[in-house]
């Protein structure tokens, strides 16, 4: 039991030294603190809210959260099917996109081909 504890403790100690040199977040969320951000999730959900906190695993704390839900007949009009959630924790494992709220705007579909003739 002593050798098991010693091995585990020594291994973990060495691992954190190496991990500190390797791991580094590519996204600094501290610049978004207290700003409204838009978050997209796996599964199609979207939400926006004021970023109150985060951790390195990308779990987020959003305040005044509005959730936008996609419907089958949705061309993604923002005002449709929203609901207020208030203070929420967003799971980092399902976050796929984070951007500032004013960093996105809806544009007409650029991929629609104009049929001539």
């Amino acid at each position: 039991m002593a050798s098991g504890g010693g091995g585990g403790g020594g291994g973990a100690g060495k691992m954190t030294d190496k991990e500190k040199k390797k791991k580094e977040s590519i996204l600094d969320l501290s610049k978004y603190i207290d700003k409204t951000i838009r978050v997209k999730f796996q599964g199609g959900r979207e939400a926006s809210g004021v970023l109150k906190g985060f951790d390195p695993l990308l779990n987020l704390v959003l305040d005044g959260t509005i959730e936008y839900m996609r419907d089958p007949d949705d061309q993604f009009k923002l005002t449709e099917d929203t609901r207020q959630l208030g203070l929420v924790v967003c799971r980092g494992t399902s976050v796929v996109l984070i951007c500032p709220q004013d960093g996105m705007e809806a544009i007409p579909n650029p991929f629609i081909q104009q049929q001539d003739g």
Partner: protein
Amino acid sequence: MVRFVHRLASVISEVFSNLTASVMLEMAGPLQRTLHSPQPGAGALRAERAEKGGAERGRAERAERGGAERGRAERCRKGRGGPGPALPGCGRWRQPLARAGSDMAASAVSNPSQLLPLELVDKCIGSRIHIVMKSDKEIVGTLLGFDDFVNMVLEDVTEFEITPEGRRITKLDQILLNGNNITMLVPGGEGPEV
């Protein structure tokens, strides 16, 4: 003579407990390897060996074991459950993981007014919570606890399916909700009003 050895042993183990666990384990490492691997319940045997003459080695081993346990306990209390999943019972997060993104951890810790997400979930233990899954499912219940993966134990649970319209099952007792599909957690939320 025996009493002197015992008193010396307790003094030394107290001194050792002030060192960090990892430093002490490094020190005890070579000593440990020279001993035969002891039986788990061989504390008495070790004490005898200490009396007979392997006094130094016995003392160091006992101190190392005590220090390692104390170190582990300290890590648990502080919430720095280093290797997360390997240490059950250290599920409450007080600080970000040291092993993932040290830069971000540094910036997160250095800003004390920031709210850590898992801290907020921890504060919610004992009260109602509304959980939104990746799919169109939502769960409302009383949060009893969660772990490193944010698997959740809930009580008095109501499950909602959003698209087909309507409440689904009301489950009592306790459920274990798999954290794989959790997207959002709303503390104190009452769920969709249908």
